[in-house]
């Protein structure tokens, strides 16, 4: 039992998984409740184009992904303010542009890179200690920011105008928060993969909200749901030799179904 723990890559994958299991729902709960879930999907495709650019140019792909997605996040925030009625469209355009750039760069490189496959779908074997350090350091920063600004984020999410009148620097908090979304996505890509990272921001939150009797509970339960899926998903993907991203997301969907099923059973008794 637990013989997987003796492998360095599994230790790193699990540690990264635990951090991502906190990050994704912590950011995701605010996205879901502000009906901004789409932004995660857009930014992850931009991050993917950053990875491709990194591979083509020989620069550390995660760093490039971080730069690309943060720049796109700032762009979205700018567009959202200027053309609020086209926010949805802006997200779709950015998603397409990101994916387009990624595909063009990959075809330019002309070699199908095994590593790229890992960035797309998540691959626990490829988490290096450098990746691990980045995830730990930036992850802690993000968790600290959300923790310190939890009340402000809650107020803005519930009632943005009210928050502004209450003296919360809404613009600044929104801007910083958008950057954190981009960072979270980039950090999570190694484990969950670009195509599935936004699912890990949304599905555990949906589960948490189903059960919660307060906002604080919703946050905690979302994190619990994500942790259960991330840790069991990584272990399962090791034994079954599956892509970790798909395994984690499928498990979190299963958890949501279970909760919905039990809830409706209890209601019908």
């Amino acid at each position, binding site marked *: 039992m637990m013989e997987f723990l003796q492998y360095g890559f599994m230790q790193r994958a699990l540690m990264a998984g635990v951090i991502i299991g906190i990050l994704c729902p912590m950011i995701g709960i605010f996205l879901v*409740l502000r009906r901004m879930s789409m932004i995660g999907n857009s930014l992850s495709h931009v991050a993917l184009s950053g990875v491709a650019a990194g591979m083509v140019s020989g620069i550390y792909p995660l760093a490039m992904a971080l730069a690309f997605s943060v720049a796109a996040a700032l762009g979205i925030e700018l567009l959202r303010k200027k053309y609020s009625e086209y926010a949805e469209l802006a997200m779709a355009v950015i998603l397409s542009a990101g994916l387009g750039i990624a595909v063009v760069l990959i075809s330019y490189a002309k070699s199908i890179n095994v590593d790229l496959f890992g960035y797309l779908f998540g691959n626990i074997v490829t988490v290096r200690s450098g990746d691990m350090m980045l995830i730990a350091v930036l992850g802690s920063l993000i968790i600290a920011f959300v923790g310190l600004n939890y009340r402000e984020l809650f107020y803005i999410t*519930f009632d943005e105008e009210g928050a502004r009148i209450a003296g919360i620097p809404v613009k600044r908090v929104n801007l910083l928060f958008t950057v954190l979304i981009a960072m979270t996505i980039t950090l999570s890509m190694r484990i969950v993969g670009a195509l599935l990272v936004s699912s890990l921001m949304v599905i555990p939150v949906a589960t948490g909200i189903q059960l919660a009797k307060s906002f604080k509970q919703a946050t905690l339960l979302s994190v619990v749901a994500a942790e259960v899926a991330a840790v069991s998903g990584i272990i399962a993907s090791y034994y079954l030799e599956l892509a970790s991203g798909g395994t984690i997301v499928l498990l979190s969907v299963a958890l949501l179904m279970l909760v919905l099923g039990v809830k409706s059973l209890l209601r019908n008794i």
Partner: protein
Amino acid sequence: MNAERLISISNLDFQYGKDLVLTNINLDIHEGDYIGIVGPNGSGKSTLVKLILGILKPSGGCIELFGKDIKDFNDWERIGYVRQKATSFNPGFPATVEEVVGANLYSGRSTPKPGTKKARERVNEVLSIVNMEKFGKRLIGNLSGGQQQRVFIARALINSPQILFLDEPTVGIDADSQRDFYQLLEIFNQEMRITIVMVSHDIGVITQKVGRIVCMGDGKLLCHPNSSRSEISSMLKKVYGNTMDLLIHDH
């Protein structure tokens, strides 16, 4: 009139892009006032309130709050606000009544620090003012419209404001709750000495409840708090047509 002047608006203009929405508004609000702002939809009532609250910036003229130009004013906890459609939030939002009310403690410098025992006591205190103390742990989305409205009033009261703005607070609330609501406002104004400014397009009710009426039409102030009843009556007739005549009477 020797009550303290809380708000003073002079020559105020406002435009959204090229559309002139308010022109040359002059209005003083004094301590203890209970003012109703009436006027048809789109006449600029909400815009006027948002200008006073600093949510929008004037295109011309000036606004003084508590004797200070609005640009230098930062005692926002002295002003409470319940915005139009406050209850139109996402009904599935997982937040308790206590969380919603407590979030507003942020602004107050003289109010208890968020998360402390004092803060929780203050939340319960304002909830009991609006008779909602039993609902603190309930999810806000599970309450009735009237109950939600009272929660938002409690939220506006948490920093002990001296003046309270309410923008169309009775829309979508049943008749019984509306009666309770007006009773509550009377207590605020008479016993707690809170100045109240209430926006409504339902002038039939509001003219019977408030102390004084401000009437807006087409971005202009058609009558002031100091207009006589007959002036107001003729103005309302002009804006709404003849039927309003009966509704204006002294109490």
